[in-house]
């Protein structure tokens, strides 16, 4: 452990001095284990319900990153807290502290550990991202053209010649892959359905294709704008219901489409 060198050139402190470094590292290890256990226990209550495999994967990445984050942040917190309790002097100090300097091994070790953490985050993120985006659209995939404008969403279903315009809710079928083609009529908007894990900008004059997403949970969700788009930005949300294939078909017909 590179941190073990933090004592630096002060290894020969007076024998009466307790072994601070060992103590603080034990405290850190214990608190880290407790912290990770607490997080794993409460995570299911903190992370929102995922309604697609993509959102589930995103939530899982969140879980993993937090498991890593707990010991990393506790490292600073524990060293800071320990120093403030043990090394604090009441009133103005009359003498100076031990002028420690980091050994080269500590510096290089620290850089090595942080680089490895960094590398892990990068590789994890890239693998997860390319897995999510690798699903190819098939003949079964539902194509949905999403048009944003100030301040509403319109979903068009070209395979059925149907549109969500005039509907109270927007519907998607459960367990069927869907691909969104997102664009904007006026300014920049942000297309987001949190429960499906889809979030991409709606750019004027551009059509952006999202990853292929399969909603897995029947339920009612919302599509929201997540880029400030003017006066009624905060009202730019609509209900998106994930429903059974039968209900979806009847909704499509009610919206003027043909099966």
């Amino acid at each position: 452990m590179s941190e073990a060198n933090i004592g630096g050139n002060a290894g020969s402190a007076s024998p009466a001095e307790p072994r601070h470094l060992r103590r603080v590292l034990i405290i850190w290890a214990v608190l880290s284990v407790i912290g990770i256990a607490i997080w794993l226990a409460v995570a299911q209550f903190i992370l929102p319900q995922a309604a697609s495999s993509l959102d589930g994967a995103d939530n899982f990445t969140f879980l993993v990153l937090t498991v890593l984050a707990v010991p990393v942040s506790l490292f600073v917190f524990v060293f800071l807290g320990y120093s403030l309790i043990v090394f604090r002097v009441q009133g103005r100090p009359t003498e100076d502290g031990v002028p420690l300097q980091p050994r080269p091994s500590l510096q290089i070790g620290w850089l090595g550990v942080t680089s490895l953490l960094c590398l892990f985050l990068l590789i994890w993120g890239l693998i997860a991202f390319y897995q999510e985006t690798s699903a190819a659209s098939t003949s079964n995939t539902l194509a949905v053209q999403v048009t944003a404008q100030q301040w509403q969403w319109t979903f068009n279903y070209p395979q059925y010649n149907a549109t969500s315009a005039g509907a109270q809710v927007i519907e998607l079928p459960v367990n069927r892959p869907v691909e969104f083609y997102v664009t904007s009529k006026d300014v920049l908007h942000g297309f987001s359905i949190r429960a499906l894990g889809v979030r991409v900008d709606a750019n004027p004059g551009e059509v952006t294709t999202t990853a292929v997403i399969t909603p897995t949970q029947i339920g009612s969700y919302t599509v929201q704008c997540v880029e400030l788009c003017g006066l009624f930005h905060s009202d730019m949300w609509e209900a998106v219901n994930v429903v059974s294939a039968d209900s979806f078909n009847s909704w499509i017909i009610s919206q003027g489409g043909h099966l």
Partner: protein
Amino acid sequence: MSDTMSSTTVATVKRPNLINSLFPSVISGIVLGVVGAALAGLLVNRITTAFSPDSVPNDDAVTAAVYTAWVLFFFIGIGAFNGVFKWAFARREPTPAEELQLAGKDQGLWRYFRFTTDHKVVGMQYLATVFVLFFFGSMGAFMIRLEQSRPGAIFFNPQTYNTIVGMHGIIMIATTIIMVSGPFGNFILPIMIGARDMAFPRLNALSYWLLFAAIPIFFSTLALGGFPTGWTGYAPLAVQELTPGMDAYCFTILVFAISTTVAAMNIITTVMVMRTKGMTWGRLPILVWGVVLSVILSLTAFPSFIVSQIMVLMDRIFNTSFFLAASGGSNWLYEHLFWFMGHPEVYVIALPAMAVAAELTAVFARKPLFGYRLLVGGLVGISVLSVIVWGHHLYTSGSENALVAPYMLDTELISIPTGIFFLVLVGTLWRGKIWLTVPMLFVCGLLVNFVIGGITGIYLADLPTDEILHGGMFVTAHFHFTLVGAGVFGFFAGLYYWFPKMVGKRLDPLLGRLHFWLFEIGFVGTFTALFYAGLQGEPRWSANVAPPFATPNLIASLFAILIAASVFTFIYNVIHTLMRGEHAVANEWGAKTLEWTVPTPVPLENFEELPVVTSLPYGYGSPLPESPVTPAADIAGAITQAPVQPQAED
């Protein structure tokens, strides 16, 4: 030293000559600026009406003319061009007496209201401005929290709300950019490197008064209909907006960015050429490194902000189409220009605050910095890497997927030099003799908040988690933890630390502790609740809270009351201290940097004789624990100075 003592008496002798003291000053500047702006507005109104096919004036052109004339005539009125004018047309060089007059010699408090070149005057002007702007910015924040406490519209309609959010954002961003480099970079930094003034004293005054001139431009947006874009000013929304309130935003950015550029060039030149004998680059106090790297970064970043706002203004005034997709423009162009400034700018704010924390930790742990060169390397690493990380703001922009890998690599690399900062600070505290003063409390708060801010940044840097958090409240909470939790806490640490040197009085420590605890508890509570709201999917910038997010928003608003209480505690502390605070001694904290070797109040030109530096200013403790005890004075004597200034010890 005597000139500051006698300043009041001399000022009273000069009082009969009212014209002399009013012109040039900020009063004549404002008068001439307003007159010039009115004339220019009238003129352009007439011209655009005459040339318009349907006889309607071009409001945006009129607004632009008014702002341009305001800045130009304000500077004529305040006497900013007098020096240039005399240099060009006078038959002789200015005498030293005239230069001292310009530096505010014997002008009492009035020197703070003139085009004064003394770096300490400019530093105090910046400090007062930072106070005022922070006050307005925090009031904006409380209005936001008030509105967000319950779902639906309570107090403000969406237009007012959007304008408040945008104003809060711009005020706070601008203020945090200048909060350390302005007051401390101008007042403390030249003394720290052993200089008598900045390299370009007139440019120094210019940079401050440009900032001053930008403030009325910014607030004029309230009279012109506000702006709907938030602080990011995204086009094409900014081009679509009809009210000229948007032009106020663009012009504020222009004037502010020019001010920052001027200040940056001045600070860089000062540190390059004005260091005293023996003050090598390897002996610079860490604050100097932090400020210099920060302003170098702002020189790199701000030009693209200036360019983007000029393009928006051209789209608005001359109907060009840089950002309009319908006629070949692109909103991505704006996003790239903006974030090429926007992300380095975060580090423009963070670097000096981090440097303040490091500077103070050495003093209050009574230990040399744990790896000075390592930390300098870390700060340099941050400033280099921060130029190439802006892409993560465009993760979800719909750009090519292949771009994600380099964006993600750059963004995550920057956590390595940031990690160095934590190693150095924790190492400096380790086995120190920690003196937990109010400035040190703020440094500890900074460490805690910066860990949270940095770690939550990882979730936004990793694309799988960013695509559920982007554009949401999680982002808001994250950048508040870095900009407020690290930035503003660093500013307050520096303020409680240098206030005795700058003002000559001690801020009350008990009120300071109250300020800290109210601020820290309120701050962590508010933004932890918003992290939760963001994780559930609450979007940013929403005027009306959607019902599912009501509870975390209410909790956040309740904690914000504590922050409000901390603001007023702080204001009371400053007023109380100014009126009946204890007088500070020359070396208030027993620190070893040069600013503590000069008397308080610091005389004009700072040093009677320039000091000679022989080592780093962190000579605490004996060089090696095994070596025989060396008298502390010997190590302190690393800074030799002759003749020795009278220095109070307590």
